[in-house]
């Protein structure tokens, strides 16, 4: 029994270490894009200045607040599971899931607005833009698109976690999946913390 407990504890530590290593690779992935952004920005600072003014700061700010709140609630749901408060854990997790959906809805409206004006990768309008503008909008679509993809993945993970807490598979003794799912969600939040000022604010 004691052996089993020790073994379980080790497994948990290994699972977390694995998740962290994956998160490090994600940081480097987005880090590469941030480096591309910095270099192109230093070369085309005037064009970036003009292009960034076309982004909707209000939608960006709302999405920032949504992600910060969702990150807080998913972190709080860990505390709830640890203290055997299943009902609260499920509610907090549901807040996070709803926030994720609202974020995606906002992103949809934001992007469709751009598409409506003929601004999307490969469009005639994009091709006519000068180089600095083209680079800014390409980076904008790629970085926010990759980030939105992470939101969808994170949302899927959280839905699985929700189901497993509901069924009692994740409980106060075994909750490493919840912890790792939360880590992934915080990563999504972390990336947005840098994306928002760089793309929307610094004009």
């Amino acid at each position: 029994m004691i052996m089993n407990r020790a073994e379980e504890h080790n497994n948990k530590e290994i699972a977390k270490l694995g998740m962290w290593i994956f998160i490090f690779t994600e940081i480097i992935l987005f880090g590469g894009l941030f480096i591309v952004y910095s270099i192109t920005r230093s070369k085309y600072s005037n064009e970036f200045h003009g292009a960034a003014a076309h982004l909707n700061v209000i939608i960006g700010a709302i999405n920032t607040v949504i992600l910060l709140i969702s990150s807080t609630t998913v972190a709080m749901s860990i505390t709830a599971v640890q203290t055997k408060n299943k009902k609260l854990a499920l509610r907090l997790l549901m807040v996070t899931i709803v926030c994720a959906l609202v974020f995606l809805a906002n992103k949809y409206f934001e992007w469709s607005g751009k598409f409506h004006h003929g601004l999307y990768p490969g469009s005639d309008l994009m091709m006519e833009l000068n180089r600095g503008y083209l680079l800014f909008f390409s980076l904008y679509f790629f970085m926010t698109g990759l980030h939105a993809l992470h939101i969808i993945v994170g949302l899927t993970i959280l839905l699985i976690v929700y189901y497993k807490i509901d069924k009692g598979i994740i409980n106060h003794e075994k909750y490493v999946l919840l912890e790792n799912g939360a880590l992934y969600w915080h990563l999504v939040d972390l990336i947005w913390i840098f994306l928002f000022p760089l793309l929307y604010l610094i004009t």
Partner: protein
Amino acid sequence: MEEEHQHIVPYETYLKILAILLLMTCITITVTVIDLSAWTVLIALIIACIKGFLVMSIFMHLKFESLLLKILAIGVVLLFAIILAITFIDYLNR
């Protein structure tokens, strides 16, 4: 047997951090609206870094994790900084 070092963070801690993060977001937006020219970028980036640090240490529980994980995390951030610096040194001296 019950010595598993699970660290329970109280709800209030998370709510306090959320309040700080929201406040910092407001500051960033205000600073960019006022437009302090060159300072804007610097202030916005410093605030983003502080927010990132808070998310990693409290939300992601890094503060309560093993020394190994902390060293790894710092290592990754340093690695990123070094790559960024080297790339810039290259581009600015062409």
